[in-house]
């Protein structure tokens, strides 16, 4: 009995050792990023490595990241673009999903077929015609150019339709008897029952759009409108050069918002991101 117990303790120790070693590798970039953002240039360029700075230089590094480029503006741009996209995605997907799930209407099959086809098309594919359209409309270098291409999410329509199908018909018919219009039924009866799906999708959408580089790289040349990923590229290429302390301060600032949300709401966050198992 005690030999077996000993074996179990040994196995558990081995498990923690392996997982711990892996975790060190996974977390190393984060730890090194924050550590470097606190160090002075001389310490960064010196041989050898220490985690905690001997010469605390955080203030200068972060001040540089905030003043050399409009870092707060990048974050604000990220918030504006992600909120705008999410707003349009929800406002268009929810009614459409309800119509597909609960109302038999002519063309519903075609619309749902479009959704299924759309699920297979990566967002990079329509880029050339969309760029052309925005260029002709004179909308390059605007928030609209960042928001409109993502204004509809076939994934949201697909997901919400699945969810709405399980809303009891009695609930909807009762609301009809009470004289509610279909429009009010969608927003006042159906949506409140679908919060888990809407929350999960919102996290998925915000993470995807906060991190996207492909499309902002195409339609933006104006630094002032840069989203966080594009902003960090501007900072690296133009300002920071080999001032790694300031550069790491910048990457810390850009990475922090999503990481903090993740740490605070892990379960929901993981749910939201792995939703994309369907979409990629």
């Amino acid at each position, binding site marked *: 009995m005690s030999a077996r117990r000993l074996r179990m303790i040994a*196995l558990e120790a081995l498990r923690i050792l392996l997982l711990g070693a892996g975790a060190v590798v996974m977390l190393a970039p984060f730890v090194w990023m924050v550590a470097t953002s606190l160090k002075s240039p001389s310490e960064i360029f010196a041989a050898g490595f220490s985690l905690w700075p001997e010469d605390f230089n955080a203030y200068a590094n972060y001040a540089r990241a905030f003043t050399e480029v409009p870092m707060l503006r990048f974050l604000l741009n990220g918030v504006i673009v992600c909120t705008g996209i999410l707003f349009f995605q929800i406002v268009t997907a929810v009614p459409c999903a309800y119509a597909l799930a609960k109302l038999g209407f002519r063309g519903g099959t075609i619309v749902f077929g479009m959704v299924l086809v759309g699920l297979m098309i990566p967002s990079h594919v329509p880029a050339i015609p969309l760029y052309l359209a925005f260029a002709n409309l004179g909308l390059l270098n605007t928030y609209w150019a960042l928001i409109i291409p993502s204004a509809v999410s076939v994934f949201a329509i697909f997901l919400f339709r699945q969810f709405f199908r399980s809303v009891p018909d009695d609930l909807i018919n009762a609301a009809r008897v009470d004289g509610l219009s279909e429009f009010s039924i969608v927003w006042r009866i159906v949506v409140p029952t679908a919060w888990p799906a809407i929350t999960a999708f919102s996290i998925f959408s915000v993470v995807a759009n906060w991190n996207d580089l492909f499309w902002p790289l195409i339609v933006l040349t104006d630094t002032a409108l840069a989203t966080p990923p594009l902003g960090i590229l501007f900072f690296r290429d133009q300002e920071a050069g080999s001032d790694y302390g300031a550069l790491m301060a910048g990457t810390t600032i850009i990475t922090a918002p999503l990481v903090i949300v993740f740490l605070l709401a892990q379960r929901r966050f993981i749910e939201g991101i792995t939703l994309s198992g369907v979409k990629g």
Partner: protein
Amino acid sequence: MADPAPAISAAPAKQVSKQAAPRNEPSGGKARLRDRLAGIALATPATALMLALLIGPTLAVGFLSLTDWGFGARSFAFIGLDNYAEMAGDPVFRRSLINTLVYVGVVMPVSVALALAVALLIQGGRFGRTFFRTAYFLPVASTLVAMATVWQFMLHPNLGLVNEMLRLVGLAGPNWLTDRGLVLFTLAWIGIWETIGYNMILFLAGLMAIPGHLYEAAEVDGAHRPLDKFLTVTWPMLGPTTLFVIVITAIRSFRVFESVAVLTQGGPGNASQVLLFTMYRESFVYFRAGYGAALTIVFLAFILILTLIQIRVIDRRVHYA
């Protein structure tokens, strides 16, 4: 008793959504007409946007790929399949296609295997489950462009942490991002680092769906050691999940773009050129819209093939697991 055939079908979690409420059919022609009109009204905005932003432009890309058009050009000519013919003889395209396939070929098996190992280890004990799950998922939750910049610094030939560590054990670290033979594998490593957490979560979900009584039955049948339990219960039951994770990872890593755009721009000398980055460069740096459109179609074709495989895999998962 310990029949490991996956057809046991024990976790109906996925099937719940299949048993959705029956379609709403209110009686009376008037109500039905009202429903139909409301349906059309509610579906129109999304449908119009889908046509304008997704379906229409995708068809337009197909058309453009048959022309010699460039951004800003006043006219264009219909050149049939010339763009595709050019592609066949274009060494940059060939390089980028091969590189993309090599990248997928490295990232997919390694990240799937490591993620499975991590998931099994996390599930296999009590201590530190939440901590380890968080640690391994953190790269997924962070901004890749920012973290790629951090990797660039960590992989710096002189100042970087990685080579500094190698020096400690007496090795001269290479120049990870400018060595032609190495750069693609360095990018693949970053892709693996970024993907493990995602795959781990999918595996953890798959592991949790395996009913405990199967392990008890295996124990009765003499499978006491962890390895025996893994081989008789876990691995067969996890088969569909594994297949699903493999395909998902292939689709995700086929879209590699960010790390290339941030770290190498396809260099040195096209050694890290990948399909999506070539498409970006031809279309939006050289403004060759027609050729870029043809590259987009090739990219789409690969994604479609992978997606069709994925759909078959999902079907099987619904049936079995």
